[in-house]
């Protein structure tokens, strides 16, 4: 019991523990698996998103950078173009105005223009100079006419500080110049110096090309940086070139535009001329630098660069292409955007380091990757925290579950223990023990059932005691009844010691229960002996009682008989008597015979009984007595019985029996039967004393029965005639 209890306790404990652990492991496993899955997916997706975003945004950023680079080139070149267009407009206007004057002299009065005077230094004034090889007097008309241009020249000079000078130089040999450097045009005595402009580049180029031209850049004589001149021819009334008008400007404003061209950290602008020389650049060192102090002719041409890439790009710029290229300049990769400038054969270029263009994109990519890594880190930490939490729960469970499980198991097993103890007490005989278990579950129900069982057991035991007592009483009474029944039969042998004429012997072996067999014999008078054998239907007390009645009635009627011929009447009367109030429908088979001791005549009536066997000494054999068929006694009222008789001689005998003999069963349910009975008797020693003859038959019956239980009374009676 103790072991069993511990078993349930342990089982509950293990169950609780394993359920908890399995639940934890499964839930935890799923959670970790899920999170790991999410993590690996998230990392992949994150990296992918990062990479794609970085690539896309890098590309976009690069495109934006390049677009702004190109935009800057475009815008700045327009600014420069504007300056030069202004320049061209000025010169064209001068040319148009001058041509108009010459071709319409009637509209103009000769004007005066003074020679240069040192006192005018610093003031913007018109000044006339002559070539040394001409006579100023002869040119007076033309000079006067040409002097009409001076007001326009003055206006131009005043309107624009970058304009150094405007001039008109006639082929005839004079020139009128408006500027503020009169001191350069006089000698030490303030006498005007002659001026031969014909060798000057602007004059020669106009005369050569006969159209508006720009000179090469030159260093301003006033120390105002680079300068350039624009000049154009004008025509006389015949349409022939009469001279050249021009304007000289400093390129300070162009230089400023270039210098102010900045993009990002590293971006700057520059202007390249048709010879591949850098005209303007904020740089003082490197390939794209310029030294404004150098004579332009001494400046190196990028066409000659050892860097083929630079040389080719410079050539493309010089031929007027607009483009974008990636070039290596002084060991650094640059994006270079360029576009040609109008009016000149120059090209405006803007560069920016490639790294700067891609840097933002790189930064962007880096940021995204960082975010992804942070996300992965957060996930990693979450998973770690979760595993830690699970471990903590696991440990707590390992510690707590045994306690919880033990108390739970105790809760389960305690009522069972109580129940066990109670049942043990009940089993030991205390049926008054009541189990008091209030768990509200099946165990309480079981206890209630046990209580009910105990009650029933008690009742049953009480009943059993009563019934046993009753049975014992009845058995005792039946025993007594059986004794009485047996003692009712004549059982002292020899019964009539003084009667030597016959011998009589009978046995009755009752079956377990009291039965209904009986035999009887008595002397009616000195000469008449009555023998009876009978079998009442059924067994037990009713049969025993009916047997007693039958025996008494038969004997009483026989005793009143006065004539042997009334023997059948005795049966009839007895039958009627037995039929009265025989509601139980009991009946009895009776064979009754009467021996006349003197004559040997045996008169008999058979009331449905087994036919007896007769031994005739003369034939030395037994045979069944041929009996008339009469009905049993007690079955039917008012029936007649047929009386028969035979003659018995000395040595003859008659053997009566009940069906307990012929119907004795062996284990195979085979009857002993009449055949075996007659064979047995014929086999017997005919000189045997009649007591031994019955024992012989009984032995033969027992042999046949072979140990099977005797089911009916076995009753036999033999009557032997000794002498007549």
């Amino acid at each position, binding site marked *: 019991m103790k072991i069993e209890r511990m078993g349930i306790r342990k089982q509950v404990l293990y169950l609780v523990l394993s359920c908890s652990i399995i639940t934890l492991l499964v839930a935890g496993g799923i959670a970790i698996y899920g999170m790991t899955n999410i993590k690996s997916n998230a990392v992949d997706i994150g990296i992918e998103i990062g990479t794609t975003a970085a690539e896309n945004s890098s590309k976009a950023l690069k495109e934006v950078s390049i677009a702004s680079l190109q935009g800057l080139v475009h815008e700045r070149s327009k600014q420069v173009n504007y300056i030069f267009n202004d320049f061209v407009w000025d010169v064209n206007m001068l040319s148009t105005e001058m041509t108009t004057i010459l071709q319409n002299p009637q509209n103009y009065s000769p004007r005066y223009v003074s020679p240069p005077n040192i006192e005018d230094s610093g003031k913007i004034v018109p000044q006339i100079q002559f070539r040394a090889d001409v006579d100023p007097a002869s040119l007076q008309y033309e000079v006067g006419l040409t002097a009409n241009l001076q007001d326009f020249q003055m206006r131009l000079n005043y309107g624009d500080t970058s304009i150094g000078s405007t001039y008109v130089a006639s082929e005839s040999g004079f020139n009128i110049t408006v500027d503020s450097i009169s001191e350069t045009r006089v000698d030490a005595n303030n006498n005007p110096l002659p001026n031969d402009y014909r060798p000057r580049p602007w004059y020669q180029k106009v005369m050569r090309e006969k159209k508006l031209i720009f000179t090469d850049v030159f260093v301003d004589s006033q120390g105002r940086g680079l300068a350039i001149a624009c000049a154009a021819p004008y025509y006389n009334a015949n349409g022939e070139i009469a001279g050249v008008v021009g304007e000289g400007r400093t390129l300070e404003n162009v230089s400023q535009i270039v210098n102010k061209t900045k993009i990002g950290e590293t971006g700057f602008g520059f202007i390249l001329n048709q010879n591949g020389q850098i005209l303007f650049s904020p740089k003082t060192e490197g390939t794209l630098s310029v030294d404004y102090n150098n004579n332009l002719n001494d400046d190196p041409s990028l066409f000659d660069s050892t860097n083929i890439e630079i040389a080719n790009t410079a050539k493309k710029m010089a031929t007027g292409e607009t483009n974008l290229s990636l070039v290596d300049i002084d060991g650094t990769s640059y994006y270079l955007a360029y576009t040609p400038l109008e009016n000149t054969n120059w090209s405006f270029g803007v560069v920016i380091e490639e790294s700067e263009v891609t840097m933002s994109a790189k930064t962007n990519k880096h940021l995204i990757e960082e975010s992804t890594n942070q996300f992965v880190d957060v996930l990693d930490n979450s998973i770690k925290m979760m595993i830690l939490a699970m471990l903590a729960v696991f440990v707590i469970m390992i510690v707590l579950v045994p306690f919880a499980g033990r108390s739970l198991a105790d809760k389960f097993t305690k009522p069972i223990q109580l129940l066990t103890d109670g049942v043990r007490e009940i089993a030991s005989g205390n049926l008054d023990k009541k189990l008091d278990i209030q768990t509200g579950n099946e165990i309480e129900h079981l206890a209630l059932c046990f209580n009910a069982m105990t009650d029933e057991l008690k009742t049953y035991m009480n009943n059993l005691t009563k019934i046993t007592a009753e049975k014992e009483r009845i058995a005792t009474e039946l025993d007594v009844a059986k004794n009485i029944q047996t003692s009712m039969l004549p059982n002292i042998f020899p019964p009539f010691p003084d009667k030597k004429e016959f011998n009589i012997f009978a046995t009755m072996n009752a079956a377990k229960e009291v039965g209904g067999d009986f035999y009887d014999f008595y002397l009616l008078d000195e000469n008449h002996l009555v023998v009876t054998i009978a079998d009442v239907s*059924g067994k037990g007390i009713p049969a025993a009682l009916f047997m007693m009645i039958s025996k008494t009635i038969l004997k009483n009627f026989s005793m009143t008989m006065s004539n042997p011929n009334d023997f059948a009447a005795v049966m009839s009367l007895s039958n009627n008597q037995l039929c009265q109030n025989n509601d139980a429908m009991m009946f009895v088979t009776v064979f009754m015979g009467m021996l006349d001791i003197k004559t040997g005549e045996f008169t008999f009536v058979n009331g449905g009984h087994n036919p007896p066997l007769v031994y005739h000494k003369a034939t030395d054999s037994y045979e069944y007595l041929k009996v008339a068929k*009469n009905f049993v006694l007690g079955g039917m009222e008012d029936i007649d019985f047929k009386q028969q008789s035979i003659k018995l001689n000395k040595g003859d005998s008659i053997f009566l029996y009940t069906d307990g003999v012929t119907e004795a069963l062996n284990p195979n349910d085979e009857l002993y039967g009449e055949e075996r009975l007659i064979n047995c008797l014929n086999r017997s020693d005919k000189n045997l004393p009649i007591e031994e003859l019955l024992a012989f038959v009984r032995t033969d019956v027992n042999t046949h029965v072979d140990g099977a239980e005797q089911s009916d009374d076995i009753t036999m009676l033999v009557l032997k005639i000794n002498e007549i």
Partner: protein
Amino acid sequence: MEIQKQLENTTLTVALVGRLDAVTAMELDKELKASLEGVKELIFDLAKLDYIASAGLRILLKYQKLMDKNGNEMKIKNVKVEVKEVLDMTGFSDFLNIIDSKVKKLSIEF
């Protein structure tokens, strides 16, 4: 012993199988008592009855009388030789309505 009952309208046929002795006779009595309500004709089929004890005879007698008393009929058929011997010996064959006549005559004349 086995008791096989078959009721057709008011005819109850009772087939007895085995041995009708003191114990089984009481069973048969009980069975019949419970089944006779409204039965006008009671037929015992003894084709498979091997043995009849005096207690069995008593039951046959009892119900023969009961049926007679109420004006009903009782018949016995298919009686085996072994049983017929007993019926003859006890004189019951004269009082019972045995309708089957194929029974062989007893080898032993009484």
